[in-house]
């Protein structure tokens, strides 16, 4: 347990939102016995609550779990969806980090007092969430320690704030399954990511799918819930591109080709083409295999 830092920045001053406030998150109001008071750190901007997706999963995350969380969350976050999670190490922390790296916003709901960082070793992530227009929220004041019953209460908020919940990886007794149950109870859409049958950590998610959760096979499955057209997202990522990058993408849409061919076609130095290709690859717009570049 660790006391959170004091640096003279605006968001270190705790904020309080009461259920009677106008600013109280609308979706959270609708659950049974919503928390009366929410303590928070960060800039409270209600737009952050408009499109929330809870992303939860096992703290015993596998390599697959990390990979798929990064892959899915980065595109979902980039599309403008707020990612909500519980700040636990494993899938939660990965989801928070992926959102920040993709330039999106994330909300971390703590199972302890608002002035504590738990788990303590993730202090850097805590700072980054706040530095990147995110929010830290807790039902508990000051230095209230985490305990057996604070976690379920936190999970209620995670599920309650969100329009939908996605479970990435879960063993059959995982805490994230509780959040999944809550999502179902609150009539939020529930998604689960399939994992390898050989993995213990897929047992929970596969069971959820069997019981009726929606299977996630791509970000489209989720974004449809938020009425976000993936093409539009990709197209708008195109807006952020400079002339060269757009030119490259147009050429690749016609025909996949090698970097040298692009260099000759566009008549720009291979160095500039290489730079542009890297940037578009990182944005997830261009892919490469066997020396050939292509767009989806």
């Amino acid at each position: 347990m660790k006391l959170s830092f004091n640096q003279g920045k605006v968001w270190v001053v705790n904020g309080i939102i009461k259920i009677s406030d106008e600013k109280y998150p609308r979706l959270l109001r609708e659950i049974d016995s919503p928390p009366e008071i929410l303590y928070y750190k960060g800039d409270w901007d209600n737009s952050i609550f408009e499109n929330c997706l809870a992303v939860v999963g096992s703290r015993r995350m596998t390599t697959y779990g990390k990979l798929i969380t990064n892959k899915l969350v980065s595109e979902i976050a980039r599309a403008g969806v707020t990612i909500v999670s519980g700040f636990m190490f494993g899938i939660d922390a990965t989801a928070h980090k992926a959102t920040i790296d993709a330039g999106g916003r994330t909300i971390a709901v703590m199972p302890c007092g608002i002035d504590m960082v738990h788990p303590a070793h993730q202090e850097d992530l805590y700072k980054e969430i706040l530095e990147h227009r995110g929010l830290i929220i807790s039902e508990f004041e000051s230095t209230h320690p985490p305990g057996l019953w604070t976690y379920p209460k936190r999970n209620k908020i995670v599920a309650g704030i969100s329009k939908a919940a996605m479970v990435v990886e879960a063993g059959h007794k995982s805490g994230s399954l509780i959040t999944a149950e809550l999502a179902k109870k609150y009539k939020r859409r529930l998604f689960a990511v399939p994992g390898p049958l050989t993995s213990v950590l897929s047992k929970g998610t596969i069971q959820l799918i069997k019981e009726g959760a929606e299977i996630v096979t791509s970000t489209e499955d989720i974004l449809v819930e938020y009425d976000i057209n993936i093409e539009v997202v990709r197209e708008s990522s195109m807006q952020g591109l400079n002339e060269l990058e757009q030119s490259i993408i147009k050429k690749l849409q016609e025909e996949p080709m090698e970097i040298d061919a692009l260099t000759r076609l566009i008549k720009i130095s291979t160095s500039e083409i290489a730079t542009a290709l890297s940037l578009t690859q990182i944005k997830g717009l261009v892919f490469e295999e066997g020396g050939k570049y292509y767009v989806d």
Partner: protein
Amino acid sequence: MLIKVCSAANSGLETIGVDVEVNLANRGLPAFEIVGLPSKAVDESRERVKTAIVNSNIEFPTKRITINLAPADLPKEGSFYDLPIAIGVLASIMNCELPEKSLFFGELSLDGTLRHTKGALLLSLFAKEKGIKSIFVPKASANEAAIIKGVRVYPVESINQLLAYLLGQIPLEPAKYREVKSEVVQAEFDMAEILGQEQAKRAMEISAAGGHNFFMVGSPGSGKTMLARALPGILPILAERESLEVTKIYSASGRIPPEGSLIKIRPFRAPHHTISQVGLIGGGSRPQPGEISLAHRGVLFLDEFNEFPRGVLESLRQPMEDGHLTISRSRERVKYPSRFILVASANPCPCGYLYHPKKSCTCTQREVEKYKKRVSGPLLDRIDLYIEVPVVDIKELSKNQQLRNSSSLEIRARVEKAREMQKNRFKEKEIYTNAEMKNAHIKKYCFLSKEVKQLLLQAGMAFQLSARSYFKMIKVARTIADLEDSDGIRVSHMAEALQYRPRDQIRDK
């Protein structure tokens, strides 16, 4: 009567003085013995010396001749003791004085002429070091010895000639001093001659500028070998100090041709994958430099990298790390330098045609996976740049008119400017190029702005970069920045560097 003739023996690149003591005794049966642990070749000197003297129309003395090569407990190898022995014997019977502070060295032919003998340059360096004023070497070896200022190098054609000089009968001019000067040398393969391959050529420019090792993957016929051969031509010209180092190694291993002198172009070595470990890194009972030392200050090209035995490749690791190879034997320890740029190439799969536009690949999925796995490990760790070399379609080339091809000379000029920046950067440390930077250097010299760090992070996710790759990317980005004369590493530099990122075991993505 005892005459002492000074000579020297080379052990690796080190030289020690050897005194050739010649004693002609009147008592006892005529004999001709060499003592002082001579090897067979040295012992056979007796036959060569005797025959050479007789063939020079000089009567061979019928005395008891004893030659002692001192120090007596150092094993003597080589054929160069012929001259000191012969001249010692002749000086003895002719009662002539040998010049003070002189070294004698050279192999004799049976007709009395001197043959080109390896190691003359080392002798010259030794003489300079010990304050020895003159050396007498075979004429064909004189040019290489003459690059050392302050040493008079007498080119000897035959023992008759030498004797006549020593007796004051004829003059003997020392070889003209050849100043060690860097000069611009034309490349063997000019980059302008290589069609297409824009990315590969750019990668080579980066490699040359920062000293980065690189790996090429491509089908047979994609031009990997030609590209590798063009690399020495864009490396900066050898500095004097480097030229001397290379010439020493080549002199010691007998690779300087007769009349040859200073080596001015960077070496290019391309050993076949059936080479033994000793052949590659050096060794043998009388330790000889291996390909890595023959590639010193130049390029070592390992074509068909997958085919090299693991153990052989593994043995490269330490010398690449240290920049030299030490070979220990029970009697001596020899050190050969080995700083080179490693260029490795491989096919994408066993049949070679995995990504070929026209030919189809005949390998099974398993075979391809297995093949890619063979290229792995700590050696790949030393390689900073990876490129896929496509097969160039000549027709396609003429369809889209090429950008103007830079010549090797133009590229070299850019490379030298980048090297200059590195020289200033590392002026207090022991390294000379960006490629040599270790983590501590990277921390010190490669500041990354927030945007660049952000890019690296995103790239780390998108490309699944390993921690090691991160550091490689920073080094490469630093070199790209140097090529653009930029003090700071910009986002564009890092983005370009990412295109050359290691694809683990050349796996996709």
